[in-house]
């Protein structure tokens, strides 16, 4: 289990994280959501140890990562797999070499065993065999993400971190990657922590969701609870995204017949256009046109 307690991070005068606390549920897909600049990437980097928090604790199985010895940190890192936003594949190595790299570095298995494992994980992410000898620059963004995911799970990690895995992908490929992450989480029983601002991901795979807003944890709950949340800032974020907009809007219309007044003008315009409804700026809505 990963627990973060009162994490604070500042760069000079600028405070990016303000005493964030959360518990990442083991064996589940934990999603950190929020708009750009909300601090979710910094939070993830603090959890994995790529950044040192200014204050607070990151607890892995009851031990504070920040105060651990170098050897203990190394041991934890061997249990971590991470899928980076830009895949972070090694340019000079082929797909196969990228995936075998962690095994070469840390495993004492024979080459044939390592190759078998590489094939196993590349098959798991549904990568065609003809791509094995290609370089990252020769394959598509979606394939790069699959390879990066295969590399992240090749050592059977306990913890899987995904930093905006859908960034730069088309919606269909994003869904495929989301499903893969969900399946791998269940199959390998990993504690997955994923940064995203894609609401499709929230509904598809989010077991436990942490919503960040301007460096603070604004809301925490499940993907079922998010629909019925009354948190104003979360709702603003949700309304700005396409996927939950309809569900949320329908519920509001059914229950109150109004659109919240705090919704941004652009979003209000989009809603009017989408539902073909004249609200005359007074927030009163009629029946949505089908």
């Amino acid at each position, binding site marked *: 289990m990963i627990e973060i307690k009162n994490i604070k991070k500042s760069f000079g005068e600028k405070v990016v994280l303000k005493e964030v606390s959360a518990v990442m549920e083991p064996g589940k897909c934990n999603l950190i959501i929020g708009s750009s600049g909300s601090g979710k990437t910094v939070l993830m980097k603090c959890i*994995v*140890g*790529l950044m040192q928090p200014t204050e607070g604790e990151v607890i892995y199985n009851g031990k504070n990562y920040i105060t651990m010895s170098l050897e203990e*940190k*190394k*041991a934890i*890192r*061997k249990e*971590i*797999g*991470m899928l*980076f*936003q*830009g895949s*972070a*594949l*090694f*340019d000079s190595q082929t797909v196969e070499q990228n995936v075998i790299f*962690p095994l*070469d*570095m*840390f495993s004492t298995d024979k080459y044939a065993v390592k190759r078998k494992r590489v094939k196993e994980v590349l098959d798991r992410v549904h990568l065609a065999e003809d791509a094995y000898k290609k370089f990252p620059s020769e394959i598509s963004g979606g394939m790069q993400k699959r390879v990066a995911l295969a590399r992240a799970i090749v050592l059977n990690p306990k913890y899987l*971190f995904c930093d905006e895995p859908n960034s730069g992908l088309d919606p269909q490929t994003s869904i495929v990657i989301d499903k893969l992450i969900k399946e791998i989480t269940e199959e390998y029983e990993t504690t997955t922590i994923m940064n995203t601002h894609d609401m499709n991901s929230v509904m598809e795979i989010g077991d436990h969701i942490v919503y960040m807003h301007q460096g603070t944890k604004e809301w925490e709950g499940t993907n079922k609870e998010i629909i019925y949340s009354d948190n104003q800032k979360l709702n603003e974020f949700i309304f700005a995204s396409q996927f939950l907009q309809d569900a949320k809007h329908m519920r509001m219309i059914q229950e109150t017949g109004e659109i919240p007044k705090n919704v941004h003008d652009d979003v209000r315009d989009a809603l009017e256009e989408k539902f073909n409804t004249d609200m005359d700026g007074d927030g009163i809505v009629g029946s949505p046109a089908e």
Partner: protein
Amino acid sequence: MKILREFGEYIKMFKGMFRMPENRSMYWRQFMLQCNDIGIGSLGIISIISVFIGAVSTVQTAYQLVSPIIPKTTIAQIVRDTVILEFAPTLGCIVLAGVVGSKIASELGNMRVSEQIDALEIMGINTKAYLILPKILAGVVTIPLLIIIAMVLGIVGGRIAGSAAGIIDPSIYDNGLLMNFNGYNVFFALTKSFVFAFLITSVPSFYGYHVKGGALEIGRSSTRAVVVSCVLLLLADYILSALML
């Protein structure tokens, strides 16, 4: 202040670099890869430059030694000593600072920007030891070898040019090479090349490893790495000459 801060960070870079490797064979492979990149990869340009430097030295020395009382063997002696003492180690390393330095800075910069270094860190790999140390060691091993080759080719280039231009007969040139030869000059040149090799691999590694931003910053850090390496190299050249000659 910025220079002092950078210097402090440069020194700090070496802290933590000398730890037990996670897997010795992987580090050895990385070292050999770097030896190939830095050594074999720079052999062509060093060879071309050395031959021409030797050739030009012979022609220009002959042009300046107009007195009939100065024996022609002096041309060979001057070419030999200037090539060994200065042209091969200093000019050769300045060229290598451009070729090798920019490559190291841009390679590490690209790895930093595209999060490849973070990916290695997450795996629990000591990135300074895995990425920087093999480059420095490979440079310290291969660059002095390149400089020895540059010395030989520079002197041979001078011989060919002297003969081709009718300035000096090859046998006279050969005799000149053997006259008043001081082995300490080679020792001095090799000492310089070790120091220069360290500078032209560690300074670009520092700038590349600490890049922040995007493609523009990679270019900037690469340029800065070459400029700083060259300046430090010339400063070291002066200090070593003052101390050792």
